[in-house]
């Protein structure tokens, strides 16, 4: 193919100028591969309709949307909805809950898969290793509804498994499900249980790329296993860690809202209500379309700014940034 193309170029070159040649070649490629546009068409229309379509609808954040008047007929109100949100008594609570759950999750959920992957990597290949990996990956496939059901059942005050365990140890068990103070811990640790194992895969992939020569050289120099993990394996993981950290920071305001929605109840609301559950409630339950669109837009703008800022910081300090 390349050969024929080159020959083609030469013949065209001999009687046409350079600019025309490139145009002609592009056009030829388009004609030759017209079917590829059919291949991409479903995805193109999908993203156009279902991703860009809603972006068009964002305008109602700046309007007073009334369904009977439609997008065009509704009047512009500027930043009214945003101002109302910022001035509302729940604004700081929502922001605090969202940020604290995210950061708590990051602080606990981010290092555990790394440590786990480093440990898995030291375990000898064989039945035990396969068993551990199969079992720890499995919770990843449990649906969020079943997960919430498990949490509720295990923590049920009268007969939950975890309650029995705590009481068996001689302590009195707190009301996990209904006390605001426990909500975040319950959310974060159930998340670790479900996804820490699966989270190791990406790190194990990075670890499998370590040059064995490095380890051999280190052994000859008398390095212990711990020293090799510390000075060879951990540095290997830093690029992956950085990328995942940036992506996590970009999602700080989008916590796993499907699980929160299921675990939320009127008693723990003061610490479980986050921006995204608020958007759901005010938008789809109370039908305040414009207002909740504005809140959602605020959420995604903050996410975007966070992502870009963190990426900039990382880019200044190391070469592992996203872009």
């Amino acid at each position, binding site marked *: 193919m390349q050969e024929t193309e080159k020959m083609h170029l030469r013949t065209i070159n001999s009687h046409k100028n350079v600019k025309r040649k490139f145009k002609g070649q*592009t056009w030829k490629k*388009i004609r*030759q*591969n017209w*079917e*590829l546009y*059919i*291949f*991409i068409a*479903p*995805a*193109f229309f*999908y*993203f156009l*309709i279902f*991703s860009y*379509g*809603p*972006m*068009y*609808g*964002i305008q*109602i954040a700046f309007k007073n949307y009334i369904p009977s008047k439609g997008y065009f007929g509704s009047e512009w109100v500027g930043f009214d909805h945003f101002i109302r949100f910022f001035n509302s008594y729940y604004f700081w609570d929502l922001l605090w809950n969202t940020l604290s759950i995210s950061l708590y999750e990051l602080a606990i959920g981010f290092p555990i898969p790394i440590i*786990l992957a480093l*440990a*898995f990597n030291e*375990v000898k290949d064989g039945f035990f290793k396969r*068993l*551990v990996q199969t*079992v720890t*990956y*499995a*919770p990843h*496939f449990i*649906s969020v*509804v*079943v997960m*919430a*059901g*498990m949490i509720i*059942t*295990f923590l049920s005050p009268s*007969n939950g*498994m975890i309650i029995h365990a705590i*009481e*068996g140890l001689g302590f009195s068990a707190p009301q996990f499900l209904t006390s605001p103070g426990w909500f975040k811990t319950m959310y974060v640790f159930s998340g670790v*249980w479900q996804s820490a194992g*699966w989270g190791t*895969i990406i790190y194990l992939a990075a670890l499998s790329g370590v040059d*064995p020569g490095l380890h051999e050289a280190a052994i000859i120099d008398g390095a212990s*296993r*711990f020293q090799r993990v510390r000075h060879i394996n951990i540095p290997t993981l830093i690029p992956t860690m950085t990328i995942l950290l940036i992506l996590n920071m970009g999602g700080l305001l989008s916590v796993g809202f*499907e699980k929160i929605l299921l675990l939320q109840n009127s008693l723990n609301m003061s610490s479980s209500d986050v921006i995204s559950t608020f*958007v*759901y409630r005010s*938008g*789809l339950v109370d039908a305040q379309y414009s207002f909740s669109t504005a809140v959602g837009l605020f*959420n*995604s703008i903050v996410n975007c700014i966070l*992502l870009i800022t963190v990426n900039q910081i990382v880019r200044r300090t190391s070469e592992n940034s996203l872009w």
Partner: protein
Amino acid sequence: MVSGIKLSKRDRIFLICTYTYVAIALLLVAYPILYIISASISDPKMVASGEMWLLPKGITFKGYEIVFQNSKIWTGYGNTILYTLLGTTINLVVTMPAAYALSRKDFVGRGFFMGMFMVTMFIGGGLVPTYMLVKGLGMVNTMWALVLPGAASIWNIIVSRTFFANSIPAELQDAAQIDGATNIRLFLRIVLPLSMPIIAVMALFYGVGHWNSYFGAMIYLNDDAKYPLQLVLRQILVLQEMQSQVGGIIDATAAAAQNNKAEIASLVKYGVIIVSTLPIIVVYPFLQRYFVQGVMIGSVKG
């Protein structure tokens, strides 16, 4: 890793610590799963009192009996299977050809398409505008609202594109084209048969997603008969609606005390967790390799 060298004392301590750590992780993850399995076939009284803590005690299959008699669960099961099959098919039909086109270096405009798709990773319309769009398209309370708004994921397109670009030799495509094969023929006859691993991975990723999702069904469906399994589970596990229903069944058979109802209800809960998760848990160990492959392909920046 490197064996054959006698372990020094500090290495032995290090290894003992590592294995202990891994074993604890294994137990912490495995215990709740084993507990649910045991609890689903144990006497609910022993579960409630904490007497049953690992192995089933006072074996009974009452929970499963009630689960299997519940028509809501079966309707939900049927709906979920339908939505999963339909949804996954649509996902593959949208993802695979697009990913292949994007993997071709001679595809004019691939930068544009890629950019257009990637933007959606970071910017979206949000919940309410999406809901209004789906409503505007007349898809509320139809299964299309569950399968079309998520017809493709940019992440999976990138993973598949990386696979096509790295695993299908370009020479093969050149040769086929010189022989006069059209792109459609090339894709269907040569590329797809060589891409079974990635098709399997994508089908699994998308399929599990459909099987486990509840939120779309919760906001778009308002007809009970169309509810997928996860939404029925939400009623039973989270909203605890089974309590009253089970009560009805128990009252018919025997005049049971109030807390007996609650015990049966919790037995049913363990049962539905098993029944709903079983297909994935049974299939998963066999397919684990593919899932892991999928994550790995994705982690190679393409």
